[in-house]
């Protein structure tokens, strides 16, 4: 038995949930560190510069790196951030402790699942990209590891449901507190959304990769994948919205304008996130134009809660700027705390979300989609959304969460600030370049530096893309330095100085508000969401399941 020295104080004694949250968060940022490493190399590729021969012994091909980039960033990092933030924040808000055994089980499942999937990924045995479309066939360990990883999120769903139920029992008739409500709807949405992926992997891909079944139907697999694949972007986005609604106004020095509107936005996400996946299959044969059109309409409806969010947040920031003494039409903008990295991350992310969202309207427009389907336009679009808005909100959150969880003060605030500006500039430049290249027809997911002379027409934008990759490399270096130097240092603040979570206050609250009361009937809305999904997916899925056309797997990398 080791003897506890006095200097080794247990910071988690009163708050064991802090430790599991920190582990989730840091595992997520570790995944982001590895995944992001390939980003600048991809940007160079799209600038016609091929760095991959240099990586040869470790990374076999461009596509292996791209698989790691997509999986680690878009699947691993995003889910772990949600599991860290949206279990911890409701627990803090309700002043309750989540079930600690289960909380650790969720961490271990994520960790083990990641470890199992990592082996074939690093060994070039599952170079199938993060969408793993059959009949490209990866090693079974990839699908098994991914399944365990995703199932760990079901434990998080249960943890929040359990917190909410306990709170409701202790506070009958009261309206769910805001952060808890937002987290709860997020997790319920994810439960409905994840079912497609779970069925695809558990029923088809795992038995197939183990050799138990001969083939799988590629169209059905795509449909199940995109059933989850669109709402998954809201699964990534909503934690960022939680930061924007419940933390950012306070950090900016003001209040959230409207609590009921925040609830309404999240409720609309619960209803409309899932039944829209065909908008990723506009170009697919085997789905009728009528169904594609129906999903187009529903997709446009999901823009509504984001439009609401844009308004509420802009109004809340104006409220903050004026509270800080900003005057005139635009003076409030200057008055905002631009020196605070916690403010910078989500705010610069939100600004990038505006062009990102506008491009989304193009993608969602069924006929227009043909112009940009599978071009770098799409990559430009989602780097403004997930790699900027979501990732920068997570970065901003890390700047207060890590000090809050560990009592270790933030190291290198100048680097933190610089990382956010550089990330913002780099991503917007890259987004611009990728959109243009895509409009000119440059394909995504292509090792085009092998054949760079084939895309002369897009040369200026390709050069810009390479430059933004370098900027982003520096930005990422600064960011990871700050958070790992902060988390790994030995300094700790005294207990009395633990940084608080900056939960925001609201101008108009939920009490006596009709909308807020209606939104609180969570079970009812969940049922409505299920019905919408059955309407939007029932018939096409029945049709596909009853006319399966299995195709054998292949390894072509």
């Amino acid at each position, binding site marked *: 038995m080791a003897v506890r020295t006095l200097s080794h104080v247990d910071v988690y004694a009163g708050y064991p949930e802090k430790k599991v949250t920190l582990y989730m968060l840091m595992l997520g940022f570790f995944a982001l560190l590895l995944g992001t490493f390939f980003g600048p190399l991809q940007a160079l590729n799209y600038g016609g510069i091929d760095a991959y021969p240099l990586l040869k012994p470790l990374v076999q091909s461009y596509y292996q790196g791209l698989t790691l980039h997509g999986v680690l960033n878009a699947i691993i990092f995003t889910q772990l951030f949600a599991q860290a933030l949206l279990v911890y924040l409701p627990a803090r808000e309700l002043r309750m402790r989540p079930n600690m055994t289960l909380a650790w089980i969720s961490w271990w499942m994520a960790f083990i699942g990641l470890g199992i999937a990592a082996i074939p990924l690093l060994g070039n045995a599952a170079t199938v990209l993060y969408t793993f479309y059959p009949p490209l066939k990866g090693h079974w360990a990839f699908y098994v590891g991914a399944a365990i990883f995703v199932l760990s999120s079901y434990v998080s769903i249960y943890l929040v449901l359990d917190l909410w139920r306990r709170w409701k029992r202790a506070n009958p008739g009261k309206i769910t507190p805001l952060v808890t409500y937002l987290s709860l709807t997020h997790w319920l949405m994810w439960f409905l959304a994840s079912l497609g992926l779970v069925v695809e992997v558990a029923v088809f891909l795992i038995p197939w990769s183990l050799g138990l079944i001969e083939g799988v139907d590629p169209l059905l697999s795509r449909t199940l994948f995109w059933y989850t694949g669109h709402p998954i972007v809201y699964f990534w986005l909503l934690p960022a919205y939680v930061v924007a609604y419940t933390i950012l106004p306070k950090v900016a020095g003001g209040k959230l304008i409207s609590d009921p509107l925040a609830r309404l936005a999240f409720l609309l996400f619960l209803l409309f996130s899932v039944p829209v996946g065909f908008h990723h299959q506009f170009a697919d044969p*085997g789905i009728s134009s009528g169904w594609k059109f129906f999903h187009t309409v529903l997709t446009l409806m999901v823009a509504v809660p984001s439009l609401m969010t844009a*308004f509420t947040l802009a109004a809340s920031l104006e409220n903050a700027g004026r509270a800080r003494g900003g005057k005139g039409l635009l003076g409030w903008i200057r008055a905002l705390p631009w020196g605070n990295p916690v403010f910078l991350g989500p705010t610069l992310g939100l600004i990038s979300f505006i062009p990102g969202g506008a491009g989304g309207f193009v993608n969602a*427009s069924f*006929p227009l989609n*043909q112009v940009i389907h*599978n071009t770098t336009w799409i990559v430009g679009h989602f780097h403004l959304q997930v790699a900027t808005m979501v990732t920068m909100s997570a970065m901003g959150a890390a700047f207060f969460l890590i000090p809050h969880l560990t009592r270790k003060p933030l190291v290198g605030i100048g680097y933190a600030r610089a990382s956010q500006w550089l990330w913002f500039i780099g991503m917007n430049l890259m987004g611009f370049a990728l959109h243009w290249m895509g409009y000119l027809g440059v*394909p995504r997911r*292509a090792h085009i530096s092998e054949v760079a002379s084939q895309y002369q027409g897009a040369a200026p934008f390709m050069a810009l893309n390479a430059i933004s990759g370098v900027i982003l490399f520096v930005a990422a270096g600064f960011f990871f330095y700050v958070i790992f130097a902060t988390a790994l240092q030995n300094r700790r603040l005294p207990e009395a100085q633990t940084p608080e979570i900056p939960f925001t206050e609201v101008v108009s609250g939920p009490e006596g508000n009709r909308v807020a009361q209606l939104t609180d009937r969570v079970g009812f809305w969940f049922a409505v969401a299920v019905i919408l999904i059955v309407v939007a997916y029932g018939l096409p899925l029945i049709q596909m399941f009853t006319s399966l056309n299995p*195709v054998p797997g292949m390894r072509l990398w």
Partner: protein
Amino acid sequence: MQDNHKVVEAYERGWLIFGLAMILVFIVIISYTVLNRGETISRGAGQIDVATVRTTSPFANPRVEQVGGEYVAYVQAFAFGYLPAEIKVKKGVKVTFYITSPDVQHGFYVEGTNINPQIIPGEVTKLEYVFKKAGTYRIVCNEYCGISHAQMFGKIVVEE
């Protein structure tokens, strides 16, 4: 503060009405284009047995046929190329494409046009297009299909 609150609510209502109106306009435009210009969008033309794509009609013999005054093209997208290697048609004449894959998923993006279907093994994609300008159009595979994906090109020659 109370007055200010009212102002914010009014702006908010305006913004939401603007947003919904915008979405409505989009839906109208989209419906119009789908109904009147929808033939370039990929449609299903039935399932096919992947094992026999290369040995049975019509894809065993990838070709462009003249049927009546129009063209019908049967195309294989495979790792890593297209058959026929060169699709020859005349400008201003409607071409109906039937495309499938004997192996994995591919793209069939024809540069300078709106032709951009997903090619899925086991499914036949159908679309129609009229080339208005003569010249050589490149086909680019824009769905990851394996190690030589970036080098997968095809060619359509449109003659006067």
